[in-house]
């Protein structure tokens, strides 16, 4: 069973207005076209599992090379790939894993899932109000992800959400977030362009306290981790939040685009130096990129993936499941 929303969200003492629907009920609620698309993708997955099984028809030098290739093509990176493959080779040699295709494949998925599970913890929304801070490089999908999270919290769990448009740099950023706020049924606090991001966060939290809202989600401007002054600004926003509400932000998520290569590790590392990063949202997994770099992020930095983005629609957000992810890595 894949990780559920219930497992991924820690809502603290709150009793939610609506019980979380069963997966089957969820499917019934979705439109016909969506069902069709999903069934098509399921059959594609079946075919794809066939293909990945053939990786291991014979456990020979070529098979290990093909495996390496598959992982590198998934952006897992040379060091992590080497570590995983070596581990598996040793286990096969030692006899703890039998040298047949199916067994090796299953063990590999276990190992990859294990690596992907490093530091695994739910998203902390127990605060009252709970403050969630979104950070990341330009174009990785922060704002869209916030829209999706807000939608899930308001629609599925009946919580009240306030969005803070603390991206005061990008042209029409507040308008973009406002579009999502409307769709998600959340309120929004904004400033004039060029305003102070910390002040927006402050105002949003004050509003949440005043109105008794459950969650504040703070959007920030995309920034490259190589820009020291922008990283300092981010640290400042975090400090402002912390001064206003002790322990806040309760959760800081970094969005990582699944198409990102090895640079993803540097991104996570440098962002984590400026603000405490609790988890990764791996976005744009609806494309062909696998996002393998998150394995290195988890194993080297202890920062787990918590959510995955699978499209541009409100519902295209799921809790991260390490085993599902591991299978997908090996799929052709």
């Amino acid at each position: 069973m894949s990780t559920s929303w219930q497992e991924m969200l820690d809502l603290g003492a709150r009793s939610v207005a609506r019980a979380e629907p069963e997966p089957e009920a969820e499917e019934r609620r979705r439109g016909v076209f969506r069902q069709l698309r999903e069934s098509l993708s399921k059959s594609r997955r079946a075919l794809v599992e066939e293909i990945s099984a053939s990786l291991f028809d014979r456990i020979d030098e070529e098979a290990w090379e093909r495996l390496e290739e598959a992982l590198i093509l998934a952006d897992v990176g040379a060091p992590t790939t080497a570590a995983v493959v070596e581990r598996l080779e040793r286990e096969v040699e030692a006899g703890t894993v039998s040298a047949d295709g199916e067994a090796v494949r299953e063990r590999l998925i276990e190992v990859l899932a294990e690596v992907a599970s490093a530091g695994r913890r739910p998203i902390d929304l127990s605060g009252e109000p709970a403050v969630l801070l979104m950070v990341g490089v330009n174009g990785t999908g922060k704002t869209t992800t916030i829209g999706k999270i807000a939608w899930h919290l308001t629609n599925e769990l009946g919580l009240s959400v306030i969005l803070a448009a603390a991206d005061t740099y990008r042209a029409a950023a507040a308008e973009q977030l406002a579009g999502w706020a409307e769709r998600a049924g959340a309120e929004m606090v904004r400033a004039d362009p060029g305003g102070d991001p910390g002040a927006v966060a402050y105002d949003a939290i004050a509003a949440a306290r005043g109105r008794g809202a459950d969650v504040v989600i703070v959007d920030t401007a995309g920034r490259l981790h190589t820009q020291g002054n922008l990283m300092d600004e981010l640290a400042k926003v975090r400090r402002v939040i912390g001064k206003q509400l002790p322990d806040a932000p309760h959760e800081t998520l970094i969005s990582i685009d699944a198409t990102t290569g090895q640079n993803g590790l540097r991104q996570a590392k440098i962002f984590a130096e400026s603000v405490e990063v609790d988890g990764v949202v791996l976005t744009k997994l609806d494309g062909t990129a696998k996002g393998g770099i998150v394995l290195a992020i988890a194993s080297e930095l202890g920062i787990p993936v918590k959510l995955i983005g699978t499209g541009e629609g409100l519902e295209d957000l799921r809790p991260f499941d390490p085993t599902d992810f591991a299978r997908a890595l090996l799929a052709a």
Partner: protein
Amino acid sequence: MFDQLSDRLQATLSDVRSRGKLNEGDVDAAMREIRLALLEADVNFKVVKGFTKTLKERCLGAEVLESLDPGQQVVKIVNEELTALMGGAGRELVVAPSGPTVILMAGLQGSGKTTACAKLARHLGEMGKQVALAACDVYRPAAVEQLVTLGERIGAEVYEQGTEADPVEIAAWALDRARAEERDALIVDTAGRLHIDAELMDELAKIRKRTKPHNVLLVVDAMTGQDAVGVAESFAEAAEFDGLVMTKLDGDARGGAALSVKAVTGRPILFASTGEKLEAFERFHPDRMASRILGMGDVLSLIEKAEKQVDEDEAIALQEKLQRDQFTLEDFLKQMRQVRKMGPLGGLLKMLPGMDSMKQFKGVDVDEGELDRVEAIILSMTPAERANPALINGSRRKRIAAGSGTRVQHVNQLVKQFGQMRKLMRHMMSGKVPDPQQLAQMSGGAPRPKVRRR
């Protein structure tokens, strides 16, 4: 660490010099290092395979010269091959013989298309062109507003019809308007789309058909990993793009995607977007990208800047002086002044290989005030003292301090640092890798770029 790849290669090939020629084992070892470096740089796995094969053939035929490091020789060959692979015949934007030049921008979500459109518009505007933009992204919230805001900033007209119209129709209508208003160029911004989204790729093909662009540019994020090849191939099929724009090059992603796309599609990279400001947009330089992919830093930009300031003969004379360890404080003053003319030292420091990732230099902005002080101290010295700092005894130090309005300890510090710098230069001239700690100690003195005879 400077030149990570060349250091690794030096270590791998350290015993080759005595033999004079690389054997196959050496080359294999070198290829492994290169393969790792390229994979680290996100070059596509299959492209790496093909590239190292070609490279190996060339390296097996290479004679290792007595005076050169085998590691350096291999790096030189790799750099050349990479540059050739990524450069080849450059390509200018195709200009329409009559009517507006149409440029269609396409790419994945978040690649930086909209910003690139505005930057390109500004770039063309600087050349005196009248540019208009077409807002054909009707899907992403506030995409139209974003383009309109950017258009206002650069003074370019934005043709939009909100989000209810069909993007293909908007594009066609925009072209009609651009013609009617006699614009020199029309840049068409489109929605980010997945290369596997048949519907949206079809829409892109339709926009292309209706607007018959003279240039179709694929916008690619410099941090893209192995997926770049698949994306490029699909976009090549659907949109037949002519060239690429690489974005977010101000990050520290090595940008191997550039090599992958060029190798697989043969399309050149035309422009590089190097920052969030609209001015941060330039023609693409294949040789600089090759160095970056190998992790060698943007040495060439620095050399270019240096060459503008330094007279070539002077430079050669100086180099000889350094080699003979005859570098004086007078020379230092001259050099420092020239280096200062090149622009804020912080920016220059970052261009040196490995510098931008070195923690000591993070956020270093060299104190210009300190440099003023150094200059004043040297000016208070007699020519004899500048030529031979060993002369400077206690009473001379007092005089120099008084004359420059500084204190004796500043004079002491300068003389000491200068001595350290000369030692460092001796190291660098003999090809050794300088110790970062030594450099960090030399506060106020920027490491000098190597100036070489063309």
